[in-house]
């Protein structure tokens, strides 16, 4: 359900915006549920992206360390 073009950077920026809005209470109760839902989606996306990247980097690093001997 995430947009195809969503990047970590974009997701992160949107997340911080939502966080600030909620923190500063500039958000209306009408939007709150939708925004929190969006935030949770974005967090899931970011975590997924991070984990995938970490796994990939881990693989690359393993490969790097294997090349040594």
């Amino acid at each position, binding site marked *: 359900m995430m947009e195809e073009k969503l990047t970590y950077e974009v997701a992160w920026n949107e*997340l*911080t915006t*939502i*966080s600030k809005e*909620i*923190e500063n*209470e500039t*958000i209306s*109760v009408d939007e*709150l549920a939708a*925004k*929190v839902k969006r*935030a*949770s989606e974005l*967090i899931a996306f*970011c*975590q997924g992206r*991070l984990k995938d*990247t*970490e796994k990939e*980097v881990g693989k690359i*690093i393993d490969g*790097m*360390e294997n090349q*040594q*001997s």
Partner: protein
Amino acid sequence: MVADVTNHTYKADKKIHYFELVEKGEKNSAITAKIMGKAWGEGTVRLSDFEKKTGQVFTNNLHVLVLLSVDYHSLYGLSVNVLDIDVNFTLGVLEQQRNATLKRLEAENDFIMKTADGYSTHNSRLKLPLVIQRVAVISASNSAGNEDFRHTLQHNDFGYSFQIDDYYTIVQGDNNAKLFLNKLIEIYNTGIAYDAVVIARGGGAQSDFLIFDNYNIGRAVAKFPIPVITGIGHQKNISITDLMAHTNTKTPTKAAEFIIAHNRNFEMGLLSLQRNIVIKSQQLFLSHFKELEDLKRVISGSARELLLQHKEKLSFTKQRLAADTRGILHEHQKKLSLKAQLAAQISQQLLRQKKSDIDYLKGNIKLFTAGYFRNRAVGLEHMHKSIRLMSPQNILKKGYAIVKANGKITSSTENIKEGEDIEVILHNTILKSTVKEKIQYDGRETDL
């Protein structure tokens, strides 16, 4: 005696040196004096001592200070025996030669410059490649130095592999400089992109390193386009070749170790970069995860708090609303009951008032009716009296008369003409009369 050595031969089996000592003219090097000489026994021991200390083989063209005994043989004639040789004299001479060579190198070649801690040459200014793998080695064939170098390089602890090309030549004796030079040129002419050229010569016997103080070799090394690493094992001071080279080390083994260390350095840099990448990327991940976690916490916390606030506000408003409503109702109730009370009071009062008014009126009516009737009775009585007083009988009794003309009672004289008959009615008499005269008067007579 101070002299130059010529025609030198050495009988190794008998350990006897044969030579001639000559003196040359200062200007044209022409021989001005000559005598046969030999060294044996103690003299030979002193000469080999000399060779060890100077690094200089006792041979032709050597300028020496020697202590001699003079011999005369009936068959061989006059000769001298070497008893001792002055090491320091030769060292001084060698040092002078070396300094002169260095000065000449510096003076005649613009790619050689003296610096505070040695010499800067075209070769020393070359940059070693990051990794040294293809090496040309100049050494004596099957020499210990070459073996040491090759062995150290190939059996390194890090599994580095090298391609080592050998260029054999003779690495001693000033007169072999030409061969040495040719080897350098040969290396250059192969066109192989060597990473470095190594000059390897083992320690071993301390004899004749003078080839490395040779002007032409020094110059060629200084100018050589591939970095030259020297591993020349010698105890005396550093050679000119060492000074002109890119890097000098004390032995072939050390030269190999230098190359390994150089490569190791590169690998360490590489490993450190790799480690940095690993660590930094892990740190980056960690910090991103943490940031995300924080943000998650903040968002859920803030959202919950926001909801709570709204809930509180709402419940507060609800409470206040209820309280307010109740208050308003209460107020209205109070007002209403007050009003009701007041209304009841007022109406009662009003009733009382009205009642008392009625009572009053009732009293009044009673009172006034009686008065009224009395008054009416009096009025009536009075009226009755007046009417009685005004009756014609009474009036007539008082002296008044009624005039009748033409059968009718009249108060006006208008229709009464002179001569006309009229009746004048008095109290108990009627006077039939005729009008003699009509006289107008103002009535005053009656006021009398």
